[in-house]
């Protein structure tokens, strides 16, 4: 080590928004003030994954893991930990949140959140400064590219990918080697393209964002390997405009790689040339679909077109095009360096390697996790995620976003892979994993996703355009107390028609959240329809808040909390809610200390 100590500060979007940048600056200033700059290096890294406890600061070589750090803590961290060698106890992770802080966990490897994780894709996130190419190279970066260019033929690369069993991480799980092979063998054009799908449309998921922010060079390296393999000289990264930090880091990475001769003309002195350009998305979910994405790169409205022909032979400007997801690419350098056999030793029979999930919703440890395929949902939710907060009961987990479905309690022990999730009526999807508890209404979730897909439908084909609106309309009616028994069958019929007849994946999968919640929670639908009740307390039109005279002590807390002054009553006298004015926000219900208010 060139330095005595390294201070790693998380520079992922989550931590940045909690002033990680200020922490970084303050730490640098403190190091400066203590004249330690020759001995201690402060590095801003990508996401550590443990977003719930952010901002995170890690100090090497001791591996001390500090959580919830504030900018004003910089002085103490430097003066105590760095200068005096005394860890700052109050910033060390306290998993049980006990007041005496008796069960502190100092090192990352002992933190339960990390124990069942296995990092391939996120291997460099939180380890290196993504804005410094040398740090990527120091961790074997671009070694796979060198190996491919000088020691391998395109067919060897395909063979290695085939052995690895790597399947696309963008949702559909198509074998990557096959796609590359189609494009490599395409003879309809000399010009070919490599495209990276970084559109990450699933609302509530940020795997690709974190990978790009934390390790942009891994994507550039993999795309260049793809270019060499299929015979392309140009690559495009199509990324959401909503991801400014990732865009900026990609720009820096491209510039650095070009300066080092790792991208551009005659890469590493060979006769292979490859260039990468960034193209911005503009907030259309359907552009995550590959044919729509390619139309968007061409500068057009992002409307899907029927396949076949597939992009592998007729893609961007009708040229053969490899299109893969960010996470798929991030795996490639490791497959090349460690070998396909190594990769296929991880995971299940049909699904190899790892999967990155954005674990969010009603879960104690929200964050970005990477786990081997075949892990169970129970391990993810309870061992890694720490369970459901507030003593609430687990109800379901949703994977695959607007195209996916729910997994319920009884299937918590099913090993997660592409096939098993499909059998349960969900999909692997790109990695959004949203945990829901007893306070979440399944009908409302279905309605939420439908609202999303109706809004995002490009309108090109009728089943999606009209079917989606109809489904939404029925769900909305049920949630407002206007449902009829026949609605259940109607929902099923329309879903089937959309799944069968829509042109692209958006319309084909849009009914999935409805079909899946109906499959497991038909009772809850019936409750809304027959009893006109929402026991989760979400569908506002079916709710009524009532103050019970025998329990109300007239403390006036509820009346003061009510944002619309719907509660009246004398001090020390039972209060009353004016139902016509009530907006059903539940503020009174939450505020009452005497359980005098019921929700029904």
């Amino acid at each position: 080590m060139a330095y005595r100590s390294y201070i790693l500060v998380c520079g992922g979007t989550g931590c940045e928004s909690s002033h990680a940048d200020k922490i970084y600056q303050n730490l640098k200033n403190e190091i400066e003030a203590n004249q330690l700059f020759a001995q201690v290096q402060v590095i801003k890294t990508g996401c550590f994954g443990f977003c719930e406890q952010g901002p995170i600061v890690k100090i090497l070589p001791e591996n001390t893991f500090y959580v919830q750090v504030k900018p004003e803590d910089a002085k103490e961290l430097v003066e105590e930990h760095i200068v005096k060698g005394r860890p700052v106890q109050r910033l060390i992770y306290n998993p049980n949140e006990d007041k005496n802080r008796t069960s502190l966990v100092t090192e990352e490897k002992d933190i339960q959140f990390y124990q069942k994780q296995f990092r391939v894709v996120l291997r460099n996130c939180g380890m290196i400064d993504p804005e410094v190419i040398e740090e990527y190279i120091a961790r074997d970066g671009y070694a796979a590219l060198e190996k491919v260019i000088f020691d391998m033929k395109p067919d060897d690369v395909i063979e290695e990918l085939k052995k690895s069993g790597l399947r696309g991480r963008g949702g559909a799980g198509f074998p990557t080697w096959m796609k590359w092979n189609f494009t490599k063998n395409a003879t309809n054009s000399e010009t070919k393209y490599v495209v990276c799908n970084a559109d990450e449309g699933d609302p509530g998921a940020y795997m690709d964002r974190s990978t790009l922010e934390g390790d942009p060079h891994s994507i550039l390296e993999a795309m260049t390997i793809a270019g060499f393999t299929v015979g392309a000289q140009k690559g495009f990264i199509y990324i959401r405009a909503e991801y400014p930090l990732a865009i900026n880091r990609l720009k820096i990475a491209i510039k650095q790689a070009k300066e080092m001769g790792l991208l551009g003309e005659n890469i590493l002195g060979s006769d292979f040339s490859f260039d990468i350009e960034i193209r911005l998305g503009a907030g259309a979910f359907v552009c995550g679909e590959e044919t729509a994405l390619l139309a968007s790169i061409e500068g057009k409205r992002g409307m899907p077109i029927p396949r076949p022909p597939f992009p592998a032979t007729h893609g961007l400007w009708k040229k053969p095009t490899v299109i893969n997801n960010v996470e798929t690419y991030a795996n490639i350098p490791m497959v090349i360096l460690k070998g396909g056999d190594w990769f296929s030793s991880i995971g299940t029979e049909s699904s190899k390697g790892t999967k990155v999930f954005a674990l969010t919703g009603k879960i104690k440890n929200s964050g970005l996790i990477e786990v081997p395929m075949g892990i169970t949902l129970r391990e993810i939710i309870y061992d890694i995620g720490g369970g459901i907060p507030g003593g609430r009961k687990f109800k379901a987990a949703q994977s695959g976003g607007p195209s996916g479905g729910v997994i319920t309690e009884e299937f918590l022990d099913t090993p997660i892979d592409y096939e098993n999730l499909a059998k349960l009526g969900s999909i692997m999807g790109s990695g959004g994993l949203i945990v829901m508890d007893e306070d979440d209404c399944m009908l409302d979730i279905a309605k939420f996703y439908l609202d999303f897909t109706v809004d995002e439908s490009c309108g090109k084909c009728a089943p999606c355009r009209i079917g989606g609106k109809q489904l939404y309309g029925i769900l909305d009616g049920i949630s407002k107390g206007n449902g009829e028994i026949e609605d259940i069958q109607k929902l099923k019929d329309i879903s089937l028609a959309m799944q069968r007849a829509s042109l692209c994946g958006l319309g084909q999968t849009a009914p999935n959240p409805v079909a899946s919640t109906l499959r497991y929670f038909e009772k809850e639908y019936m409750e809304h329809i027959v009893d006109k009740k929402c026991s989760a307390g979400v569908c506002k039109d079916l709710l009524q808040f009532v103050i019970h005279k025998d329990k109300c002590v007239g403390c006036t807390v509820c009346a003061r909390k009510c944002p619309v002054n719907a509660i009246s009553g004398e001090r020390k006298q039972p209060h009353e809610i004016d139902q016509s004015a009530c907006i059903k926000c539940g503020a009174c219900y939450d505020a009452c200390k005497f359980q005098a208010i019921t929700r029904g």
Partner: protein
Amino acid sequence: MFEKEVAGVELSAELNQFISEWKEKPGNLIMILHRVQEEYGYIPREVALELSRMLDVPLAKIYGVITFYHFFKLTKPGKNIIQVCMGTACYLKGGGDLISELERLLGLPVNGTTDDGEFSLEAVRCIGCCGLAPVMTVNGEVFGKITTEQLPGVISKFKGN
């Protein structure tokens, strides 16, 4: 007849420079629209007309693209742009309540702008900070794990700036 509509807009030197760099590249329109919106905050009609002339693309095509993509705006937003995340994680943790409360506090509907042009309110999809749900941003600054009680404070921080 149409000539009258080609109002004389002066594009900044940087914008002109950007357009000429991209002019010959296939599929340039969306990138140029991004650059225009970065400068104006939306896509003014005169600029769209000017682009149509400079790039030799029909105005209808330009509007076809602008209206297809949610990101592009046709009207001028307020000085301070409040975006509330309505991605799944934030929705489950009360993103909807944040919106209703902001609508009440600012007296405007989602996608509206206050009469004094001070604030715009938008509902957006996941901004990738789901671990901090519910999340909102003001002029790009992220506020995570935010509660309705904190909203007046956030608004006053930006008011008059």
